[in-house]
């Protein structure tokens, strides 16, 4: 009897323990203290199932990241894509999910390496958006096994900024090469040019001595002019290929501008151009190279005058805005067509222009810590804006 009691007792304790544990489990579930469960499949193997809410951190991570994420079936149909990807291809998500990934690639044959089993890697590919525009991207892919099915996971990164940087780098390397060539060329050209100039002047004297008449004189005059033009071009080129040597002193922009305008007095009256000068008294002295800045102002004003062959108005303003000094040179002339970068070497709208003047302006202004920009309306006029920060660094 006692044995039976003991057996019952033990069994009872066992049942109590089991009940206690079951009770605790239920309480834990009710209390939301657990978020995953172990289940036994029909094959007897355990599997862990996670409550959907628990995937939230991963989901948010993928949804919020600043790159495109795409999951493809192994025949390259999109099973999932995040919003970033949808924005990249400018297509609503519901038209992406279920569609062949091919639709978004500008070159379809790029999919081949992706479809190989268990491969992972990187590639560069152009995406094509709904509106036909393409976007260069870097993609990183890997295959993912999920039980029996095998998927491909893609991360798509917008490469346009890197491409831009690469293009800029190539461009600046190209320009550097041009600059070096120019320096060498101008050196080589300078000597023969001065020889030519000397010879022409000699010939002019000899002609005058033997009284050979006006015919030669005019032609020699023309020769001289052309040689002079070449020399000026050469000098401009030389100054562009070296950083300007600046002699910085405290300078009053207003007086520099006035002096420049005085030099152009005859030209402006002859062309019928009205001049308006407005110099703000708030503008302080700036650390500038006076001669070079006069060259800048001369260049800008001359351009303005040449843009108004039948008259117009030339406005020169200086003012203080926040922590910069702004200098504006505005004309009511022919304007500059859109899409042209007037600061580019050899870009000019003038039939006789060398195309270097504004490049030099920009070089001088930026070397002194300033910036130059322009706005233009063809037929209405152009406005150049120079801006110098108040504490112009000494470069």
């Amino acid at each position, binding site marked *: 009897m006692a044995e039976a009691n003991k057996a019952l007792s033990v069994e009872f304790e066992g049942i109590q323990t089991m009940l206690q544990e079951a009770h605790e*489990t239920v309480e834990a579930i009710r209390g939301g203290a657990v978020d*995953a*469960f172990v289940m036994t499949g029909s094959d007897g193997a355990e599997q862990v199932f*996670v409550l959907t809410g628990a995937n939230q951190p991963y989901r948010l991570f993928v949804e919020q990241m600043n790159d495109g994420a795409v999951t493809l079936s192994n025949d390259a149909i999109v099973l999932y894509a995040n919003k970033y990807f949808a924005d990249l291809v400018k297509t609503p998500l519901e038209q992406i999910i279920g569609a062949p990934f091919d639709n978004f690639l500008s070159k379809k044959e790029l999919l081949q390496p992706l479809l190989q089993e268990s491969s992972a890697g990187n590639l560069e590919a152009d995406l094509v958006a709904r509106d036909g525009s393409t976007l260069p991207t870097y993609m990183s892919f890997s295959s993912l096994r999920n039980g029996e099915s095998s998927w491909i996971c893609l991360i798509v990164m917008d490469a346009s900024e890197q491409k831009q940087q690469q293009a800029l780098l190539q461009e600046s390397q190209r320009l550097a090469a041009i600059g070096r060539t120019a320096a060498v060329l101008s050196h080589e050209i300078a000597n023969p040019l001065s020889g030519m100039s000397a010879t022409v002047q000699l010939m002019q004297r000899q002609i005058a001595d033997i009284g050979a008449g006006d015919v030669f004189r005019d032609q020699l005059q023309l020769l001289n002019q052309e040689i002079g033009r070449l020399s000026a071009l050469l000098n401009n080129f030389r100054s562009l290929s070296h950083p300007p040597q600046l002699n910085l002193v405290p300078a009053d922009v207003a007086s520099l501008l006035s002096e420049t305008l005085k030099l152009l007095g005859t030209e402006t009256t002859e062309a019928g151009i009205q001049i308006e000068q407005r110099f703000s008294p708030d503008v302080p002295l700036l650390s500038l190279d006076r001669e070079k800045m006069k060259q800048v102002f001369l260049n800008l004003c001359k351009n303005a005058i040449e843009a108004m062959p039948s008259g117009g108005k030339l406005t020169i303003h200086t003012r203080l805005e926040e922590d910069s000094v702004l200098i504006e040179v505005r004309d009511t002339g022919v304007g500059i067509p859109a899409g042209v970068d007037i600061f580019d070497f050899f870009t000019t709208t003038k039939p006789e222009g060398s195309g270097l003047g504004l490049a030099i302006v920009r070089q001088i202004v930026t070397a002194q810590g300033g910036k130059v920009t322009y706005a233009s309306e063809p037929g209405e006029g152009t406005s150049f804006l120079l801006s110098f920060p108040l504490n112009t660094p000494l470069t």
Partner: protein
Amino acid sequence: MGSTVINQSQDDTDKKWVLRLYVAGQTPKSLTALSNLKKICEGHLGEEYKIEIIDLVKNPQLAKQHDIVAIPTLVRNLPEPLKKIIGDLSNTDKVLRGLDLQQR
């Protein structure tokens, strides 16, 4: 093996407390349970403990050993007897009682 051990030292055999935390990857409750457990151990067990973390997502078959159904679950292997606490261990008092730890 799918397990990580915390506060392991060269000679483990003298650890008075051997605890095993069953988690499911990095679900919020799993992370909470681990964080709570560490705090409790540091606060009440000094250096005498070792925590083993078993990720059942990586090794579901290990759930059998202690009959794990809901995750996270904490199992006290040592000192005996075996104790099981289910949930994210946020209720410190309940955990201390469950582990038979005196409130200091």
